[in-house]
């Protein structure tokens, strides 16, 4: 691993509500020379905690095809190559349905008369800013839009390789999560030691393994539940990087959108230790 490139750490979880954002935000703010990247574009929350000053805003578009009627002869080739049903050709008329378009470019490429061009359709925004010394990027998918990955990709384009990047991924194990954690150096899976948490951790671990990414687990509210999660991690050789017991104080800090490391400064060291552990695991994978 080149020493000059900084680590990109993503924070994910199979289940929502396990403490992903809490970990991502507090970890980022305990470090220096760092970027916090919120990729949960359906429900971005990081900004609530770090209250960044937004310095720039970019609208995110996906390319959607538009037909030049003068060049089109209604041959229907575009409809044949669109596997998303975003194109219908009836009575030699081409009808395009932009909300189904994944922006793959197939129709544009295969039209024998070059009658299709790509136009931009707005699907969300990316905002970039700062909170103290911490750089911040997040994306917001417009309500009613169906596809997160293009916005997530746009957010990740702003990763600065000279800074440590902490990515807050969406919850779950489907497409948006994959897009967020892809090509990161290490994945932290946050879980809770309950049957719900374990069920979803197993799914998340499967995803991360399939993607061949190094990963470790943080057990949040570690004293509320049972030992099965610990047993699972031990069996599977998954490093448990940190355990945070349930605390009404921490829950209250989170509920008002505040930072744990600010209100309970002893956690600053804990998160810095977490980072060191990740560096170690990354260099000496189990």
């Amino acid at each position, binding site marked *: 691993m080149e020493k000059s490139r900084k680590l990109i750490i993503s924070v994910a979880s199979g289940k929502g509500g396990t403490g992903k954002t809490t970990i991502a935000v507090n970890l980022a703010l305990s470090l220096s020379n760092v970027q916090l990247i919120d990729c949960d574009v359906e429900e971005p929350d990081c900004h609530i905690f770090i209250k960044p000053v937004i310095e720039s805003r970019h609208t995110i578009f996906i390319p959607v095809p538009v037909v030049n009627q003068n060049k089109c002869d209604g041959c229907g080739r575009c409809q044949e190559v669109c596997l998303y049903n975003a194109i219908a050709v*009836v009575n030699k008329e081409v009808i395009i349905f932009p909300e189904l378009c994944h922006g793959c470019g197939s129709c544009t490429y295969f039209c024998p008369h070059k009658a299709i061009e790509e136009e931009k359709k707005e699907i969300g925004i990316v905002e970039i800013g700062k909170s103290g010394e911490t750089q911040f990027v997040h994306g917001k998918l417009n309500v009613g839009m169906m596809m997160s990955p293009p916005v997530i990709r746009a957010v990740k384009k702003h990763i600065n390789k000279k800074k440590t990047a902490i990515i807050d991924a969406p919850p779950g194990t489907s497409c948006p999560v994959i897009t967020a954690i892809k090509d990161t150096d290490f994945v932290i899976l946050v879980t809770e030691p309950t049957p719900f948490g374990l069920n979803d951790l197993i799914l998340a671990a499967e995803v991360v393994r399939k993607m061949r990414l190094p990963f470790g687990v943080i057990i949040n509210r570690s004293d509320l539940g049972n030992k099965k999660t610990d047993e699972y991690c031990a069996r599977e050789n998954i490093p448990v990087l940190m355990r945070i017991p349930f605390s009404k104080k921490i829950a209250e800090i989170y509920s008002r959108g505040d930072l744990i490391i600010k209100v309970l400064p002893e956690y600053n060291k804990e998160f810095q230790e977490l980072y060191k552990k990740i560096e170690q695991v990354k260099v000496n994978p189990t």
Partner: protein
Amino acid sequence: MKVAITSSGPTLQSNVDPRFGRCPYYIIYDTEDGSFKAVENKSNLAAGGAGIQAGQNISDMKVEAVITGNVGPNAFRVLSAAFIKIYSGASGSVKDAIEKLKKGEYRETAGPDVGSHFGMGR
């Protein structure tokens, strides 16, 4: 002329299915000779754009009219572009729907009956 009726089953006794894009079958009925065939709705496999694919399939089958419960905006657009008459609000058995059509009891639908995603979740 050929008429497509959205159906919950492959026979004339089956009930008209309310969804144009995600019904399990279409009964294609020929008014000239009274023959019919049941066609499985392939667009049911579609993740999205079921109404569009259904509209395309119906148009490719040279159907001239559709009898159904509801037509969403995407399907409506495709069917209209293909000049296919839409009779929505139908219910009861497919057989009854055909009788009603023959007696001229249906009026053509002027616009989509339901918002998009109507078939989703139902």
